């Protein structure tokens, strides 16, 4: 398993744990309303920890490993773009979580602009993955 795939898969499992812990927190807040801290941001945070942090990240990692080689010289096309994808996805997701909680809480302008930063990073991550992997989706 190549190093980048290991990074992806290990990270995805950490996010899975974070997702389920958040799920427990959400359920506990429903059972004991008002007793546990939280906000309206918890629910979207939960869904995105799951869909981006666990599902998409695991897919990116396994695809990086398993898809047909690009060329013998560059089997996974661009290792640099691959690493950048990982950094963009995770920085974007973590920034999103922090900023979304900030916007739901204090709502200060700074949090809102951080959310914009998260938007850009996540979009670039998706584009980078597709650009780097498209050429490996072939009949070879």
């Amino acid at each position, binding site marked *: 398993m190549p190093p980048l795939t290991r990074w992806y898969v290990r990270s995805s499992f950490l996010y899975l744990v974070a997702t389920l812990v958040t799920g427990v927190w959400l359920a506990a807040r429903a059972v004991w309303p008002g007793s546990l801290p939280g906000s309206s941001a918890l629910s979207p945070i939960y869904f995105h920890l799951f869909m981006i942090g666990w599902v998409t990240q695991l897919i990116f990692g396994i695809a990086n490993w398993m898809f047909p080689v690009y060329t013998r010289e560059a089997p996974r096309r661009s290792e640099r773009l691959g690493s950048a994808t990982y950094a963009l996805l995770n920085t974007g997701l973590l920034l999103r979580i922090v900023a979304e909680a900030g916007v739901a809480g204090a709502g200060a302008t700074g949090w809102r602009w951080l959310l914009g930063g998260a938007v850009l990073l996540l979009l670039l991550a998706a584009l980078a993955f597709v650009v780097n992997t498209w050429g490996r989706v072939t*009949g070879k």
Partner: protein
Amino acid sequence: MPTLSIWFVRTAFSYLVLGFTFGALMLANKGVPFAATLWRLRPAHIELLTIGWVVQLALGVAYWILPRFWEGPARGNTTGAYLAYGLLNGGIWLVALSTWLGLSPGLQLAGRLAEAGAALSFAWHIWPRIVGREG
């Protein structure tokens, strides 16, 4: 990778980018509100990423990777798999567009029925390929 898997996977990649774009627009609007109508994209965002990206990629990889037959066509009767591709994507667009544009709920129902049909179709194709080493 067989041709149908290439179709499934490349289509899934397209939905990934489109779904992330819809999400990006909504999240940007959450940070700095500029167009309240963007929230209408939420059901389409969910549909494109859950069914269009995740399910479609899984079907494409399953069609490619699951055991093949020793005799006859390697992947057996592929009609169900091709039908699944058409039904799944038709269904995704019916659901996404009908929710985004606020069209008749009947169209969303039709989309869901098409997606269910896709699942049955693909299962019909793939079932005989779900075997162990002993066959």
